[in-house]
């Protein structure tokens, strides 16, 4: 019935292979882009077909076994896909946003030397991401999980001639690998624990069915889930593994939009949602997730306050928003987390694409004027709204959405998270405080970004400022679609308290409800409390926006004074809390030193020392004994006679 499911990842894979192998020969950008985007769109159509079929279907969980993968004794593993409401939502997001970003890239990457390579990677990424969300067992998911990591590596390092790009790519992959280490450990422990109970499986459905065999809240389940969570922090850039994401902005902007905002980085959230049954059984892990999520949301927001690079601000904003999602997962608001994942995909993709549009325009202008200014530095922008009206409007809509202003999509999802973090049985009011503070800061720095970029005087170099064009339609169409989605995307999940039906929640219920019921996870509290909290968070957002307006539009000299007043704090925040330096100091440099020591010290000196020492001793003995070889015949004869006498004498006497 859902037998065409495999087509969804298959189309982008084909695209990737075609462009990868023959793109160089094709050369024509329109054809290459057309193949990639078209196949992506086909994939979207198939996804939509399956999605709507699932909407009308009573049976919500469908598995499709494609082939056997590994079969070793009791361990049987298949290539299998799983379609349930959760993965249905994800494939819609991935293929939908993915198609738009493919379209956008045709315009954005126009004129690039290895256009085909970019699209090959991008399609490959879509394939991997779809494998990740559709994977019917943990290992197929892991294929996607590592596959997106690979594509992220390839795309961040797309401009590989830039040292910073390739370094950022390495960092991304390696930090992700640390997370993968956790994922693998979790997988192994889980498999072993279940195998002990007689269930040899990695299949998600079977894991969910036999999860109850493990003791709820026990050490084992906590270890398993914590390991998985480590994996999630790597992929989704949470504390302590978030440092790679800001650096990942070295990649082309569509990549940042697709991979580092809309899809890949949410894989961790998705994974927790996928294994919600296990996580729900481990309250300690849930608490850890909530705390880590809340802290990440807060700290990333503080760093975002002081950055000047437009994409870095967005990157920290992404980290912060991902923190929100983890907060949601941690307090048991699984569907709210996925909801935010979706709305975030819309508005953050729109924001990244919008910033890309601005960068593209500025780059064009600088190129025209033969300047080499940094087109990503917000201090060189300002007043662009008149030059790029479509970009400006969509950008503004998304910014309002992310700030949590009522009736935009971000409001509904964010508010549900905040409410759960306060009222859930696994929540706490301090978590709410963290979330609310982060929301205020988000509103501030996002509007700071808008004001610095689009309002005020044009600070761009005079020679270039008249040459900033509005972007071509391949760029603006995706912007408009995404802006529209950012505006209305929230209406599928309007909470009951505001008169909605929360259809999103209901749709995902088959996936999450069982675990929530079994482990008594629900939000409680009066309507009055809920209204109050909602009002407070809106107020905080508006205060944030107002502050930004005061500082960056009304009194543009204010920020400078502010920085001077709190120089120390600003330096810490501006340098990202010195986390990178800390990691260098604690992990990277010792590793290098140990490596050098093991090589030069242990390997060469000790081990080879012993080996060569043996040789040296033998050689020494030999060179001592060689002087017995005088070379004179009579000496040998003499010794021989002595020997004969001794031997015969020994027998005679």
């Amino acid at each position, binding site marked *: 019935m859902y037998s065409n499911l495999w087509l969804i990842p298959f189309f982008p894979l084909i695209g990737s292979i075609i462009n990868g192998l023959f793109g160089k020969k094709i050369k024509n950008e329109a054809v290459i882009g057309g193949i990639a985007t078209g196949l992506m769109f086909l994939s979207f159509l198939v996804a939509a077909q399956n999605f709507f079929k699932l909407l009308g279907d009573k049976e919500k969980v469908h598995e499709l076994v494609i082939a056997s993968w590994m079969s070793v004794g009791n361990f049987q593993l298949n290539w299998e896909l799983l379609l349930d409401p959760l993965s249905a939502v994800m494939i819609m997001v991935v293929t939908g946003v993915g198609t738009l970003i493919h379209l956008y890239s045709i315009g954005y990457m126009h004129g690039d030397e290895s256009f085909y390579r970019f699209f090959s990677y991008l399609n490959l990424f879509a394939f991997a991401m779809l494998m990740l969300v559709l994977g019917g067992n943990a290992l197929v998911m892991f294929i996607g999980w590592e596959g997106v990591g690979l594509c992220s590596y390839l795309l961040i390092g797309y401009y590989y001639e830039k040292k910073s790009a390739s370094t950022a790519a390495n960092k991304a992959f390696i930090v992700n690998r640390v997370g993968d280490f956790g994922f693998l450990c979790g997988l192994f422990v889980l498999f072993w624990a279940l195998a002990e109970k007689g269930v040899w499986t990695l299949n998600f459905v079977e894991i969910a069915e036999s999860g109850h065999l493990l003791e709820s809240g026990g050490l084992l389940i906590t270890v398993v889930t914590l390991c998985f969570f480590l994996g999630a922090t790597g992929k989704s850039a949470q504390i302590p593994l978030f440092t790679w994401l800001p650096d990942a902005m070295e990649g082309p902007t569509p990549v940042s939009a697709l991979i580092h905002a809309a899809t890949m980085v949410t894989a961790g959230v998705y994974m927790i949602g996928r294994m919600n049954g296990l996580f729900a059984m481990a309250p300690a892990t849930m608490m850890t997730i909530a705390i880590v999520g809340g802290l990440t949301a807060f700290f990333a927001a503080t760093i975002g306050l002081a950055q000047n690079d437009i994409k870095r601000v967005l990157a920290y904003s992404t980290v912060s928003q991902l923190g929100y999602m983890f907060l949601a997962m941690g307090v048991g608001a699984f569907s709210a987390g996925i909801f935010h994942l979706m709305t975030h995909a819309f508005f953050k993709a729109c924001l990244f694409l919008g910033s890309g549009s601005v960068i593209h325009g500025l780059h064009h202008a600088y190129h025209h004027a033969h300047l080499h200014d940094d087109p990503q530095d917000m201090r060189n922008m300002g007043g662009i709204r008149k030059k790029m009206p479509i970009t400006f409007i969509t950008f503004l809509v998304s910014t309002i959405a992310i700030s949590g202003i009522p009736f935009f999509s971000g409001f509904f999802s964010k508010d549900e998270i905040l409410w759960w973090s306060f009222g859930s049985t696994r929540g706490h009011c301090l978590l709410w405080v963290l979330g609310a503070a982060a929301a205020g800061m988000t509103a501030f720095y996002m509007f700071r970004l808008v004001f610095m970029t689009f309002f005020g005087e044009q600070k761009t170099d005079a020679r270039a400022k008249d040459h900033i064009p509005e972007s071509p339609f391949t760029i603006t169409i995706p912007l408009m679609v995404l802006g529209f989605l950012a505006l209305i995307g929230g209406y599928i999940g309007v909470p009951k308290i505001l008169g909605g039906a929360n259809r999103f929640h209901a749709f995902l219920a088959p996936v999450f409800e069982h675990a929530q019921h079994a482990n008594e996870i629900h939000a409680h509290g009066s309507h009055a409390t809920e209204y109050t909290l909602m009002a407070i968070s809106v107020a905080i957002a508006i205060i944030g926006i107002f502050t930004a307006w005061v500082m960056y539009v009304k009194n543009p000299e204010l920020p400078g004074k502010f920085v001077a007043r709190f120089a120390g704090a600003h330096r810490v925040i501006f340098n990202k809390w010195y986390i990178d330096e800390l990691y260098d100091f604690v992990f990277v440099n010792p590793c290098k030193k140990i490596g050098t020591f093991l090589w030069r010290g242990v390997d060469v000196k000790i081990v080879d020392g012993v080996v060569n020492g043996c040789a040296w001793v033998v050689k020494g003995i030999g060179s001592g004994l*060689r*002087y017995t*070889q*005088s*070379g*004179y*015949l*009579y000496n040998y*004869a*003499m010794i021989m*006679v002595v020997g004969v006498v001794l031997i015969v004498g020994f027998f005679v006497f």
Partner: protein
Amino acid sequence: MITVNHYLLLSAILFAIGTFGVLTRKNAIVIFMCIEVMLNSVNLTFIALSRHVGNMDGQIFVFFVMTVAAAEAAVGLALMIAFFRNKESIDTDDFNMLKW
């Protein structure tokens, strides 16, 4: 009455003289001759004992010793010629290239 012991003692004396010659002489050809003396002393022992025990095997052995001696004479003397050609000497003091 001459017993087998007489022969054995005589061969021992000859062997000792041969040994002495091998160890003391410098001239390679003389050393070679001394070796022949030693070989012959052994031959004498073989034949004496062969008679003593009443068995032909010892005499056959002598035959083979002679064969070997002949081969040795041929090869050994050829070596000396070759050596003399290189060193203009057959003095064993000059035979010292095979050292350390």
